[in-house]
């Protein structure tokens, strides 16, 4: 069953690539939907009281080095698998039928989904590494072939950044094998951690790869270009799941396998500091962006900081909060990117400085946007609040000043999110625009301005003014967002759904200092 969860999308990708074009989207949806059903079935049959991996599959693979094809699921990976499958369905739904090379796009989305499912499923370090690396291939092609603007450069930058990390991680993986008991089984490796000095080196090698993927400050250099270039449908899984693979790897590999990375300083002390800097830095950069997509991209850096902070607070509230936050971020960020992309497609501009007073023209979209905005800034009752509260609680128990510093992010989030929402959707008294087309026309006029922030021209759209298009959300688009919005409420009101799974871990998460 676990094999099917990763193999089905991969095989589906091959099938979609060979099918005729008009069947690509239905076939892709079918495969992704089936995978989603499988993961839901997995969630239903999951035993939240069981310790150790569940539904294991274990076959020898490379006997000489005791590499096994070993899959398993536990409380950390379960909901991430569901999230991955759900977002893949949404990404395919959000793909426009007139996209060029549609078959390739959907095939690559499915391929990526299969690889990421493999990352969450692997219970063998080398198998994990294999999936970890392969996910780069579809991501690279998706960014390069279907990206906007200078996508080739963005894709190359992305792949070189991540490869530096992941090839060094290969040395780390080999080092784990040699110094932690000649095995690649994660559970065995966790039971035999090497000496602190060896851990120090291995932590650097492995942690760098994961930090780049998250991305953790200061390794987020690839993110702005990549997110700017990525098409919205791809961003659903790219931003929604791929960053989580890095955070998941920290929770699954760094913490349990290398609990004491101490030599002349302690890496475990460095990570939360970087996380807190990332929270503040991402939020500050989000404040300065004019492109709405980039506001969300940088807010994502800030939110990922919370996740890392929770993971490295080494206590249950922090790590549970981090897991909740991974799911939350995976629910909120795709919705935001899709909304922004749709606003951009309707008005021809994503420049937050020139768009205004859109709410009267697109009331449903504005309503959804408001809910998602409130969820993103952590309003109690919606999902992000629980996660952020728990990570900060965990951080406080670990070191109070970290929690205090992390609150900067909480304070800035309403500023950039509400500024974005208010500025784009409403206008000050007296600034309202009479006719809908006038607002668009003004938007079109203003969008010719070059923004200093990204150095590029935000698309010019004089044509839109003449088009009396339906501006509000179409029913299909509403349908795409609805499951995400529902999840924001469900997770906000009943986070126990996710936290209870955290009791069923494959192997314990050690607490190094207390």
């Amino acid at each position, binding site marked *: 069953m676990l094999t099917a969860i990763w193999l089905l999308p991969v095989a589906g990708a091959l099938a979609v690539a060979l099918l005729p074009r008009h069947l690509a989207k239905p076939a892709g949806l079918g495969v992704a939907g089936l995978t989603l059903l499988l993961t839901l079935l997995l969630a239903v049959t999951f035993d939240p009281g069981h310790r150790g991996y569940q539904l294991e599959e274990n076959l*020898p*693979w*490379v*006997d*000489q*080095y005791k590499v096994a094809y070993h899959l398993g699921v536990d409380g950390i990976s379960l909901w991430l698998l569901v999230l991955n499958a759900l977002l893949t369905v949404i990404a395919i739904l959000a793909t426009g039928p007139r996209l060029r090379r549609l078959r390739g796009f959907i095939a690559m989305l499915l391929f990526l989904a299969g690889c990421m499912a493999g990352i969450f499923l692997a219970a063998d370090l*080398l198998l994990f*590494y*294999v999936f970890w*690396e*392969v996910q*780069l*291939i579809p991501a*690279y*092609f998706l960014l*390069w*072939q279907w990206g906007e603007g200078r996508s*080739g450069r963005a894709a*190359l930058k992305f*792949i*070189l950044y991540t*490869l*530096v990390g992941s*090839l*060094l991680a*290969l*040395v780390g993986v*080999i*080092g784990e*094998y*040699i110094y932690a008991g000649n095995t690649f089984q994660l559970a065995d490796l966790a039971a035999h951690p090497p000496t602190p000095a060896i851990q120090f080196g291995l932590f650097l090698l492995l942690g760098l790869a994961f930090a780049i993927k998250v991305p953790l400050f200061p390794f987020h250099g690839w993110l702005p270009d990549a997110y700017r270039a990525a098409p919205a449908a791809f961003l659903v899984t790219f931003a929604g799941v791929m960053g989580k693979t890095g955070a998941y790897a920290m929770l699954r590999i760094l913490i349990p396998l290398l609990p004491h990375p101490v030599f002349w300083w302690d890496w475990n002390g460095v990570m939360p500091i970087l996380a807190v800097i990332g929270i503040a830095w991402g939020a500050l950069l989000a404040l300065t962006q004019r492109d709405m997509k980039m506001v969300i991209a940088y807010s994502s850096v800030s939110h990922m900081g919370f996740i890392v902070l929770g993971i490295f607070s080494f206590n249950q509230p922090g790590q549970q909060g981090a897991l909740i936050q991974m799911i939350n971020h995976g629910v909120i960020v795709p919705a935001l990117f899709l909304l922004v992309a749709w606003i951009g497609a309707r008005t021809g501009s994503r420049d937050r400085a020139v768009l205004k007073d859109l709410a009267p023209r697109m009331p449903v979209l504005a309503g959804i946007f408001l809910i998602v905005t409130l969820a993103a800034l952590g309003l109690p009752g919606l999902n992000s609040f629980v996660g952020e509260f728990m990570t900060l609680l965990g951080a406080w128990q670990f070191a109070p000043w970290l929690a205090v510093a992390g609150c900067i992010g909480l304070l800035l989030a309403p500023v950039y999110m509400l500024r974005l929402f208010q500025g784009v959707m409403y206008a000050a008294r007296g600034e309202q625009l009479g006719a809908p087309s006038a607002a668009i026309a003004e938007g079109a006029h203003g969008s010719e301005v070059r923004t200093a922030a990204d150095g590029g021209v935000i698309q010019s759209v004089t044509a839109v003014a003449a088009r009396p298009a339906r501006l509000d959300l179409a029913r299909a688009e509403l349908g795409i967002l609805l499951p995400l919005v529902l999840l924001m409420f469900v997770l906000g009101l009943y986070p126990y759904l996710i936290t209870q799974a955290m009791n069923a871990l494959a192997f314990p998460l050690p607490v190094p200092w207390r």
Partner: protein
Amino acid sequence: MTLLSTVPQINYGVGQAWSDLSQILPIALVAVALLVAIVLDFSLPQPLRGTAAALTAAAGLALALLVAALRFATGGGGSAYSGFASGDTFALFFEMLLAALGLLSVVISRVYVRRRNLLEAELHVLLLAAVAGMMALASATSLVTVFISLETLSVALYVACGYSRRDTASQESAVKYLLVGGFASAFLLYGMALAYGATGTTVLSEIGKRVTEQDAHNPLLILSVILMAVGFGYKISGAPFHQWTPDVYQGAPLPVTAFMSVGTKAAAFAMIIRVFGTGLAHLQAEWALILAFIAVASMLIGNLAAVVQTSFKRLMAYSSVAQGGYMLVGVIAGGKSGFGATLFYLGAYLFMNFGAFAVLTVLVTPEGEHDRISDLDGLGYRHPLLGVLLTAFMLSLAGFPPSLGFFGKLFLFTAGVQSGWTAVVVVAVLASVISVAYYVRVVYHVWSPVTSERRLWRSPAAVGVVTVTAVMALAISLYPALVFALGLTGAADALAAGH
């Protein structure tokens, strides 16, 4: 006296002759095919010659592959000809690899010469001679047979490089290869002479018994190790002895380049493992250090130089310099797992490197080869199968999991770290990051818009060869334990001969 003791006994009967011959049976089969092809070439009418030579070569190589595989499956043979050659699993591993390479080359050569309107039969004869020399090199266990085999394969390749007679680049390639190759042979021969002088025997297992760790202070042997390392460096195109590689690879006809990029490397590594690993096992600390320098230089220089190339063949030449550096990591690490990893990587290299070259045959026109990287523009849209497969070969060469190249590197690097060469492994990993830049650049061109108006030459045979290599690569990478086990068995046999 010691020399005499290694000379074959006088009472050399039929039984002994047969048992000796059976140890080198695959080589003998290739040699027979070579002779038959030559005879057919001057006895048949002109139009039939090419086909006859191709069929003879294919039959001989297929038989050799079969015999080698059967002998490997039954545990392999042992020493023959009084220790001058061996039919152990180490030799058999290379014989299988080289026979497979020969088979693939026969098809590509035929496709190529017919497209370029060149004579066919002679190319098959030359490649058969080279395969025989390479196989003999892998089973050579005496400095004498090592050198004779090396010259056999080299002379055949010198001629093969200049096969395209009207093409000045091909002629230049042949002359350069001849001059540099002769130079390298001289170094090697000098080193071998010194080793003989220091130990009084040319049989490697005997040398292994007579050389001890104390000989690290023997200037004769140290000089011998240095000179031989230089000679080996030339043959595996390791930096700083790699200067000939790009020119020769670029000028030589495509099938010859594809053949020798894999074959020469495999044979040369077999030679290094035999001579250093078996004969001079006790001087490992010394030769490993020299080879480590060559490895680091190869990986850095090869990968950096490849980044700026515009010709695909030159890019692959520098890539092969770097790949040789990776393979050296296994030799430096030594022992069963190190040598076994190198053997596995050579097997992987056969499929991924040959496959990449074979893709290029669709660009060949009667006038020339069109090997600029930009000639590949849009290949993915003009011929999706080849586009996907070339992408896979490039990713495999770059070491992306779960490709063959990844497992090859994994085994090499694990062996390297295990034996304490972590610094070299870290360099290798960083060099791999550089390599991604140019391998991905090829992929970039493959999936870029079409720029060339030239029609692709959709030869089914060439596409078939590419597909076969890709399928083999995929099959091995799905379950790499099998081929790795073969490599480890071979490595263990080579090591056992030295103790």
